[in-house]
């Protein structure tokens, strides 16, 4: 028996002619926060719904806590689900919502006082103490999110699926609740499988990250590995932090429209994209000489964006392609660049990668 909480083998789902899931196989570990990342249309919500049982696959097996469940109906699976729109029961109070599963689920039920104690404890854990009697229309979005979470966690599922749970919240609420989700999960020791379309969210919140693209799993790693070594140019593009130059390897360098770059150490595919991360590029006046193992490119300054902790600047190459540079600021003031002036962009030779 595997150590993971969920094993998926060969999961395939088609809608008419389109393939939503293409032979997906995964082993989800226990007591882990897993984010499921992918562009829209990648199949991540479909995968979640198939695991939960709301939809059935055309082929494949799912094993959960040692049991095959692919033929089991939703209410027999014992997997928790948090919806993007929360799906709270509008006719019940906060406390009744949280208690609903314990009170109504099939099988042996607990005594009334036991249920009440567990519900109260969970409400306190998610930070909703004092709101038990409120109706769901009388609380804010963030509070509804917590009710949805509490409602499913109180039934003690070993695995909880979260379908873009932060999507309906305001931006600053999102970052706060992210941290709370991690804390709650760690406290309870269950596995969260959290679907998101935001790469920053997936990297911030997950202990492991699954990247799904067009119905296939293209990468399953921890966040820094994903950030450092994306599996392909598509993944790198999706992470939105790599400058990519298309071309092919010729001898010891990479030929592209933007110029010729010396190959970094390690195996390289014969053709594809030469990528260098935004935050690995240094900007200097054109005249400055670059170091021995530095790669350099000349580009004209176009525009910049001040984000607070860093400055994003955009430079245009002779070929017309835009290169983005992220300069973290710390104690320094943001550098000022002249519009249209040429600057030297440089990075360490081995700091770049070639992707297929």
């Amino acid at each position, binding site marked *: 028996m595997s150590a993971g909480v969920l094993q998926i083998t060969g999961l395939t789902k088609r809608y008419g002619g389109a393939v939503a899931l293409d032979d997906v196989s995964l082993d989800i570990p226990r007591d882990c926060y897993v984010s499921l990342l992918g562009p829209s249309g990648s199949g991540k919500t479909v995968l979640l719904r198939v695991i939960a049982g709301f939809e059935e696959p055309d082929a494949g097996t799912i094993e959960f806590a040692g049991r095959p469940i692919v033929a089991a109906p939703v209410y027999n699976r014992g997997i928790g689900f948090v919806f993007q729109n929360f799906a709270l029961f*509008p006719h019940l109070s906060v406390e009744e919502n949280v208690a609903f599963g314990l009170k109504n689920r099939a099988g042996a039920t607990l005594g009334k006082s036991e249920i009440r104690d567990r519900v109260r404890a969970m409400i306190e854990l998610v930070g909703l103490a004092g709101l038990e009697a409120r109706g769901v229309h009388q609380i804010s979005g963030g509070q509804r999110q917590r009710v949805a979470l509490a409602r499913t966690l109180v039934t003690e599922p070993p695995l909880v699926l979260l379908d873009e749970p932060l999507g309906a919240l305001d931006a600053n609420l999102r970052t706060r609740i992210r941290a709370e989700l991690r804390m709650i999960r760690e406290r309870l020791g269950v596995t969260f499988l959290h679907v998101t379309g935001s790469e920053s969210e997936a990297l911030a919140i997950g202990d492991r990250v699954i990247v799904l693209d067009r119905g296939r799993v293209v990468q399953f790693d921890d966040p820094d590995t994903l950030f450092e070594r994306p599996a392909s140019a598509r993944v790198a593009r999706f992470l939105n932090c790599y400058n990519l130059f298309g071309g092919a390897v010729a001898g010891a360098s990479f030929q592209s429209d933007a110029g010729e770059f010396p190959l970094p150490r390690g195996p390289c595919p014969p053709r594809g994209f030469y990528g260098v991360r935004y935050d690995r590029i240094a900007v200097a006046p054109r005249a400055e000489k670059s170091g021995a193992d530095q790669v350099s490119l000349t580009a004209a300054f176009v525009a910049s964006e001040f984000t607070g902790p860093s400055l994003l600047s955009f430079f245009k190459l002779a070929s017309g392609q835009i290169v983005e540079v992220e300069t973290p600021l710390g104690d320094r003031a943001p550098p000022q660049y002249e519009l249209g002036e040429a600057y030297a962009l440089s990075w360490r030779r081995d700091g770049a990668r070639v992707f297929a």
Partner: protein
Amino acid sequence: MESRLIKWALGGFTALIVVFLYAPFAVLAILSFQTGPEGGPQFPIVAWSVYWYKHLFGLTPPSRIAPLPIESALARSLTLAVMTMIVSTVLGVMAAQAFRTRFKGAGLVFYLIILGMMVPGVLIGLGMALLANTIGLDRHWWSTAFALHVVYTFPFAFLVMLAIFNRFDASVEEASWSLGVSPARTFRKVTFPLIFPGVLSAMLFAFTLSYDEFSRTLFTSGRELTLPLAIYGTFSVEIHPNIFAFGVLTTLFSFALLAIYAILMALSVRRARRLMIQEEA
């Protein structure tokens, strides 16, 4: 401005139409205060009195004018309306629930159900009477007429429930299943409470339609008459203002019921709005 003129013109037209709509009721209300028992159901008003209202309740000295044959007919109409309301609402909810998924032949079934409200009462009443005669079945308000009342009101209940389910967010049902609750229990505890206002309006609709139903019932109710049939019976005989008094009372009764319903709705909406508080997470 051009559209301003049009707005006023249309508004005036609408006001005229409203007068047109209320004219018969106004007339019959006025005439219900005709003096009796000699006063007839036409102008001029001989003298104003509440004689006919008293006549309805049997509080007047006996005269040659028979009281309206309404007591037992009223009871029958009410019972029939309740029976119809229950059956057609159950059928309507079941059918609308079925229509939440796509299935083969859905279009055909849809039109079959809608057909029920599109066939004029005379025709289906005739057909049912013929059917009953041929197979030797007796015609009663609680069998043949009842069947037709359901045929007529089931499509209305169905359409109301279809509209309700259209706006129904199914994710609450999925949430319930994911918590380990069986579909049957989910329907009881989640779906039904949420669609209940719709069910209530379907029931109200069905009741109203059945209570006033007349052309379908004409050939199929057998010897015991429902209220509309009893009233129709007085058509060919002399009419007296007591029927107008009856009309006024029943209208006021319906009006009172709906006013109570509206007030209750407004109160509950206002209560919910007052308690809504926006807070920080």
